[in-house]
């Protein structure tokens, strides 16, 4: 099942890397941007199943991204990429509503597993919601 992923990072090379990994290893579609202020616009234009965002960006940091995304759709999991060595901020993002975090540098398997788990979680959450609505 093809899902649409939004990836935010102010480092274009990092975007390229993540996009390459995901396109090469998963069936999912990817939208990338290095401008976190575009999120609302992009979310209005696309239906994303997952948002992957860097923690430290110019203009808007990962924590704000979590808020913005969840305000639009609380069922979209947000995965935050943080540098190794800032474990405290990693725990902080989880407390603030991120689904998970990935520490840089990462192995591609780590990224792929996290993405799959996040999408799985979203599917289950969505089903639960549907069931409850009935």
């Amino acid at each position, binding site marked *: 099942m093809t899902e649409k992923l939004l990836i935010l990072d102010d*480092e274009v*090379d*990092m975007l390229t*890397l*993540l996009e*390459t*990994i995901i396109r*090469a290893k998963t069936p999912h579609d990817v939208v990338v941007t290095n401008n976190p202020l575009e999120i609302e616009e992009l979310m209005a234009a696309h239906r994303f199943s997952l948002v992957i965002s860097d923690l*430290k960006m110019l203009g808007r940091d990962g924590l704000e991204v979590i808020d913005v995304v969840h305000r639009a759709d609380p069922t979209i999991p947000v995965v935050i990429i943080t*540098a*190794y*060595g*800032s*474990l*405290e901020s990693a725990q902080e993002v989880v407390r603030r509503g991120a689904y998970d975090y990935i*520490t*840089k*540098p*990462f*192995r*591609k398997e780590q990224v792929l597993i996290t993405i799959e788990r996040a999408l799985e979680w979203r599917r289950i959450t969505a089903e639960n919601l549907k069931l409850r609505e009935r």
Partner: protein
Amino acid sequence: MRSATFRRLAPFVGVVVTVLLLVLAFMLGLLSLGKMRQVVTEEFNGQQLVLARNLAALLQQDLDFLRRELTVLNLSPSLQDGGSAAMVSRLRVTLGSVQEEELLEIRRISASGEETVVLDRSGVARTESGSLTHDPGFVWARSPASRGRILLSEAPRPVQERYGGRPLVTLSTPHYEGTGGQAGAGPAARFSGVLVFVLDASGIARRFTEDARSGSTGYAWVIDEKGTFLAHPMASFVGKNAFKARPQRNPAIGFEDINAIMRDRMLTGQEGTGSYLSGWHRQATGPIHKLIGFCPVHVDPDRPGRRWSVAVVAPVSEVQGLVGSLFVRQFVVQGAIVLALLAGGVSLIRMERRWTRLKKQREREVNLSSRLASLGMLSAGVAHEINNPLAIILGFTDLLLEETPPNTPAWEHLKIIERQGLACKKIVENLGRFARIPEQRDETSDLNEEVRRVLAMVQNTLLTEKIECRADLQEGLPRVMGDPQGLQQVLLNLITNARGAMRRSGGTLTVQTRRVDDQVTVTVRDTGHGIRRQDLGRIFDPFFTTKAPGEGTGLGLSISHGIVEKAGGKITVESLHEDEVGAERSGTAFTVSLPAVAENR
């Protein structure tokens, strides 16, 4: 460096200066003591001179009185008729009215000088015959120029002998007949003989000097113009020549000073003061320094050469002992005050230095901690920045590796990129760990257990490096603050450093645990090349390493320091470098002390 030398020397300089000041004060004190003594001595001697003057005046008055008696007697009409009973009874009246110890007898010599009526203290008058025509006294008296005058001279030898050799003097005056009450004023008067008082000179001198006191023990003595003692507390001296009597009593002493005083000053009619060395004072014997004040007694107004001299003497010790004891007391008090100040100053300096040392040590620790903290923050930032590009490099390398057929040159090269990238990651991880030491102070460890674990881990490596490993672990140690992983890392870092130091020729690694008060210590000691003195202060700095480039990150000790400090402990180091003490004694010992956890925890 100069200020350090100065700081080290400062206390010594202080002590030297203080001692010099003390010596100076002491010398000034001695000087002032000397001056004080001189002043007091002069003052005292001045008093002695005053006393001598008084005594001389008394003696002179007494002699004047005797002269007057003689004159009065000479004018008596009873004397006109030589040898008559009236004359004898008149003489008796005079003899009775004058002190026995002064006037011994009265003589009336006839005009011819052939006959002399003598009345002595027995009260019986007798007549002596024998020509006195050549006697100097009689010759003087017969001269018209002598009329109305009085001559003082030594008593004739036979008379002296009759009185046991006592120093006697005579007062003689010519007698003129028919002069009546006018003292031979008329030219018609006729020389009718000589009236003579025989006086006990020593009696007169003794009478006034006997009870004279200078100070508490000083005394007076009198000599005549020849230097014969007329009075002296030492009865045996009386009548003897002072120049001879003194050396007889104590030949060991030269008496140059007193002899010079007597010869040049006393016998020449001067008054004054001085000092001399004597051989005794009253009952005390031995060399005694004495002070003397002296004054002449002009015994014959007509002949200035005839004079006695009164001396008042006292031992110097009498004056100076008093001054000395006062000064000694003052010295003791001053010395005590100075010593108390000194002791207070020294202990203040010591306390200050101790405090400074503690403060410095504390400052060094705080300094190091803050340096580490700021460096930690810096490295955290650096780690973050490097992780980004590193993630990209490693990520693409990973992707490319998948697309590249294995074991081709391109694949090999990508592998190298990946390996080096991972090495970067390792360094950054270390930096990160250093920046982010867990704050879990609650966690405790069994230090011995961690030591055993780490030793088991490195045992084989040590064997291959020819390093003998000794564990000296005290059993029954309490648990310590600090998480086991952290402590393991600290031990591993210390052992790694020890291995590095002993790599060239092997050695012994000793790990020792001990309980010290409320701390548990572990010491890692090696027999390696040691740490240079100038490097000791920097070993805990991040990135400080003496290893070859690429062999060490220079983070091991700073990470260890951080871990131990977080646990509330301390790392200290002692090291002797082989260039400084030789390879046999060189080595390093790191001691980690950690707070022991209370037993009930």
